[in-house]
């Protein structure tokens, strides 16, 4: 489903975030990317989501070599990948419903279908009663769940989350981890980054450890 072959990423200014990363993530698999801050976790996820382009090597997602895709094709591919951003990237002048509806509007869904899917996604993250609430009136945990609802509303085959439990307390972090576990249970490929050992233990999935932009030997999934 996701294949990295000798992938390198160098940003403008010369900072090398990743180098020589080769890894394969199968369909329906759940993988946690770990490592210290600045290890290249976010870059890895963005490359997998088609948000960034690799400077070297190749990234193949669902059989498509992202390096060979034009801007429009890459944008269309992003519609099939749900991404939960570390900083949420919510629109603060739109209510919860409108935030979650955004990917569907971009994809050109009909109004009825948008209503159905948005409410289903909000229900999945237990935010349906808050559909008219503005993000500014929501707690950090609610904003995180809203971001997850937006990521799953297009029913993606791949769900990617960058530090989804980063700023949450233990109880909230557990509920978010459970949520990702439930998506994995229904066959969604889940790829998330975290440096929270408690969350990793709860996830009980394969780990990819990044250090200074390179991939350490993949660890086996710990027993839950």
């Amino acid at each position, binding site marked *: 489903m996701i294949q990295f072959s000798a992938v390198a990423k160098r940003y403008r200014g010369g900072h090398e975030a990743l180098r020589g990363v080769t890894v394969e993530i199968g369909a329906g698999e759940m993988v946690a990317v770990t490592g210290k801050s600045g290890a290249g976790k976010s870059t890895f996820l963005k490359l997998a989501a088609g948000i960034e382009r690799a400077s070297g090597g190749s990234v193949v997602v669902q059989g498509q070599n992202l390096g060979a895709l034009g*801007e429009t094709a890459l944008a269309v*591919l*992003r519609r099939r990948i749900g991404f939960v951003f570390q900083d949420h*990237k919510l629109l603060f002048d739109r209510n919860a419903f409108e935030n979650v509806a*955004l990917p569907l509007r*971009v994809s*050109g869904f009909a109004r009825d279908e948008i209503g159905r899917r948005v409410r289903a996604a909000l229900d999945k993250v237990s935010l349906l009663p808050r559909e008219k609430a503005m993000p500014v009136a929501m707690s950090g945990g609610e904003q995180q769940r809203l971001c997850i609802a*937006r990521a799953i509303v297009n029913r993606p085959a791949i769900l990617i989350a960058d530090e989804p439990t980063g700023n949450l307390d233990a109880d909230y972090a557990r509920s978010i981890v459970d949520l990702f576990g439930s998506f994995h249970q229904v066959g969604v490929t889940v790829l998330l980054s975290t440096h929270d050992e408690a969350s990793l233990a709860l996830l009980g999935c394969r780990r990819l450890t990044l250090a200074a932009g390179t991939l350490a030997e993949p660890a086996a999934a710990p027993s839950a």
Partner: protein
Amino acid sequence: MRTWLRQHRHALADALRRLASQPLGAAFSILVLAVAIALPVLAAVALRSVSSVTTSLETDPHVNVYLALDASDEDVRRVGEALRAHPEAASVKFVSRSQALEELKSTTHLAELLASLERNPLPHAFTVRVRTTESARLAQAKEAWSAIPKVDQVIADFEWSQRLGRWVTFGRKALALVALVLGAAVSFIVGHLIRLQVVSQRQEIEVRQLVGATAADVRRPFLYHGLIQGLLAGAAAVFLTWGIATWVSAELRALTPEYATEVKVVFISLAGSGVVVGAAALLGLLGAWWAVSRELRQFSPSF
């Protein structure tokens, strides 16, 4: 196809929502654009009005030769022959005093006054189409014709109308230039307004792109915004110009004497109004395209 239509519907709704969210700002922007568009439209109305006067004027080079009031039919025949024999005369047309009176009655509001006169005050006349507009040759011809017995006056009164015609032609060219400059200004104003919106909505654009919006998806609502602004500004400009033209027309009617029926304000046609509104919408669209494309280049490809 249905998806494409829905995307356009969403973009249109988005553009209308943006306009409605800042009604005062949107109204002010549209008014500024309308004033810019109204200027060349007003100039066009002024030119059309002047043109309507000049088309009824005689602008071919000609000289009117008026005979004395006591000129007999024999005098008329003799003067006519002398005029036709002159090398500068291309053609000669006789207008009898009775014919001149009838024409004056039919083209002015003086019929009643003329009917009350005991005798026809107008002389016989000849209209001579001349071969030249060169002043020296014209002066020689006028001098020769003035010397013919029973010729009272020789007047070459086409020169001012020719000059007016030339001014109208110049005015048309100047109008095209002004329309071009103000059209560019409208496009830049819309572009600038859209650019400000793009910058202020940078975060939303970024999020849209992250969730799969293509450059066309991002551009679409802004293009509708520019199109709607241009359309409304064009309509407002036509309405504004029509209001001014109506007012000026009423004032002119009150100020000009009754016999000056040719002095009137001629508003642009319905098709012309449509062209103004359409052109304004197109300029708004172009301005928006320029602004969004410029800003999008700065966003992509890295988020």
